[in-house]
């Protein structure tokens, strides 16, 4: 919309050009602020340990070495196993992918019901679900552990998927609900007259419409689940630990020697999938937000 700067672009006088420059400089300064930590992490990961001990942390590396990256991926010790992040990476994938898919699908269904099939009390149910977004996760740790034990899911990947789905539902439902309320109710009515039922309407009509909001939800959920540490550390056991736990084991050891370059390389590796998601889907993210989820 706001193409205020384009108006009269032809009449761009000196002040216009100056304004433009100030704009880009401002944007650049902010970009520096946002990039600084990444820069520090990246340069550190490319330095040798000696250089880190002796040089400035914010300086560029003198000799670039990728050893730390190799170590972090496949050699760093996270306990007695020195296989790096690799095995944990796949655990995270196994947890995050199904959890994102299930919570998104459930959120879509719930949002569809709340927005398009309103029944008495639907709004109350929705608000109750929404409140679930705000519960501090530390609160649920202990009772959840007991419950998972009772369900026989303790320490398993399905257990972790389950936990992430349950506590992701509030947000996914909220996103879809806010998107679906902008779709005219007539669509459901038309399909009803056409003879389609609840699931048919969802599957054939609403789901194909939902791409923008699916992108938003998937980004949000994937980020949350991939980066989760608390649930990962509490509800896993040997063999099911996600990458954040491994990363923590590398970065946060208390009484050992610290290899900062490996730490940083590991940190970046652990963040790569989420970064990738943001870079690839970032454009759709704004679009999806614009498409409806922004409202209240």
């Amino acid at each position, binding site marked *: 919309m706001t193409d205020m700067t384009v108006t009269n672009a032809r009449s761009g006088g000196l002040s216009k050009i100056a304004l433009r420059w100030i704009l880009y400089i401002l944007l650049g300064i902010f970009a520096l602020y946002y990039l600084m930590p990444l820069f520090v992490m990246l340069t550190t990961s490319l330095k040798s340990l000696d250089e880190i001990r002796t040089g400035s942390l914010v300086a560029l590396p003198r000799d670039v070495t990728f050893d730390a990256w190799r170590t972090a991926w496949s050699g760093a010790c996270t306990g007695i196993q020195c296989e790096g992040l690799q095995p944990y990476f796949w655990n995270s994938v196994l947890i995050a992918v199904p959890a994102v898919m299930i919570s998104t699908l459930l959120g879509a269904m719930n949002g569809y019901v709340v927005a398009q099939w309103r029944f008495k009390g639907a709004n109350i149910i929705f608000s109750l679900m929404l409140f679930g977004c705000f519960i501090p996760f530390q609160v649920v740790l202990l009772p959840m552990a007991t419950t998972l034990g009772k369900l026989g899911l303790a320490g398993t990947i399905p257990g972790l998927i389950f936990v992430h789905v349950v506590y992701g539902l509030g947000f996914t439902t909220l996103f879809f609900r806010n998107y679906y309320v902008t779709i*005219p109710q*007539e*669509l459901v*009515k*038309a*399909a*009803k*007259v*056409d*003879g*389609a039922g609840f699931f*048919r309407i969802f599957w*054939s*009509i609403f789901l*194909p*419409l939902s791409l923008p909001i699916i992108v938003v939800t998937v980004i949000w959920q994937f980020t949350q689940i991939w980066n989760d540490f608390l649930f990962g550390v509490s509800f896993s056991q040997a063999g099911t630990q996600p990458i954040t736990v491994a990363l923590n084991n590398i970065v946060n050891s208390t009484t050992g020697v610290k290899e900062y370059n490996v730490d940083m390389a590991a940190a970046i590796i652990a963040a790569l999938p989420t970064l990738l998601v943001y870079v690839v889907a970032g454009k759709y993210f704004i679009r999806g937000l614009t498409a409806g989820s922004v409202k209240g």
Partner: protein
Amino acid sequence: MAPILDIKNLKKNYGSTEILKDINVSIEPGDFLVLVGPSGCGKSTLLNCIAGLEPITGGSISIAGQDMTEVSPKDRNIAMVFQSYALYPTMSVAKNITFGMKVRGVDQATQDKKLQEVAAQLQIEQLLNRRPGQLSGGQRQRVAMGRALVRDPALFLFDEPLSNLDAKLRVEMRTEIKKLHQNLNASMVYVTHDQIEAMTLATKIVVMKGGVIQQIGSPAEIYNRPANLFVADFMGSPAMNLIPAKTRANGGATEIVIDRPAAEPLVLKDTQNANLPADVILGLRPEDIAEAGYRSGDNVQTADCMVEMVEPAGADTYVVSHLGGKQVTARLHAETTATPGAALPMAFDLSKVSYFAPETGARLN
């Protein structure tokens, strides 16, 4: 023959708000029922109730002789065209049209045959692979119709199907719907805001206001003998002139006296209606006021009127003057020489005059 649609004592509340109050309508097979009324009067709600898309609060609805009050929309044997068309945005035109059949498990061959038939009828064959987003308003409208037509239902329901179109297309589509009705001899319930549409399409018009039916009748009845002030004012464009007047008996005839600013009252003589109360509101359509010399007949009387404004509109020219404290519009021929500020002799044709009681608004003659 049993009525195709029979609505008895229908009530519909949203929460504690009464939206529809005691609606009774029945239509015969082949009828084209048009629902008109101001925005928010409950037209769409009534249609939704008929379709079963909204639960009703009281009364009953039967379609083709069967009580449908509790039946779900898909089993009511109706087809509906929505105001916003409600096309499925992600499906192609062909899929939009065949979706209902697919859901119902109609076999592919029949689907294809029906699709071809309907597409030919609506002249949308070349659009079948497009998405609704790639269609113009008129094309969308035809697709929405197509979705209804493949059904062959007992009853068609249309909710303002033409309101999104521009004037030109609307006229074309109107003719299209009319032909369709005649060809299929289908029964239809049609909601519209547009009086011309109502007048040209309907075999029966229902005028509603605030959830209450004001009048049911043929287009001519509604137009010529509106049941009350509301209907008189609502139907017809430009609207009927409604002029406060006094009456006095004069022999067998009635004299109608209308105040004029800065001039003597205008007196008209009505030989058809007698026994009117002293105060009435006189209803006269613009086309019943013409330039003197352009209208003749028993009930035509001439008087000079001061012209306030002249609006040429192509085929006709409208002239506004002041009578009885109201602006009065007359429809003159296109070549009139009337000019604002000058007096013009005008012919008042009382053959189709209406009278209303000022307090209740009810028709008096």
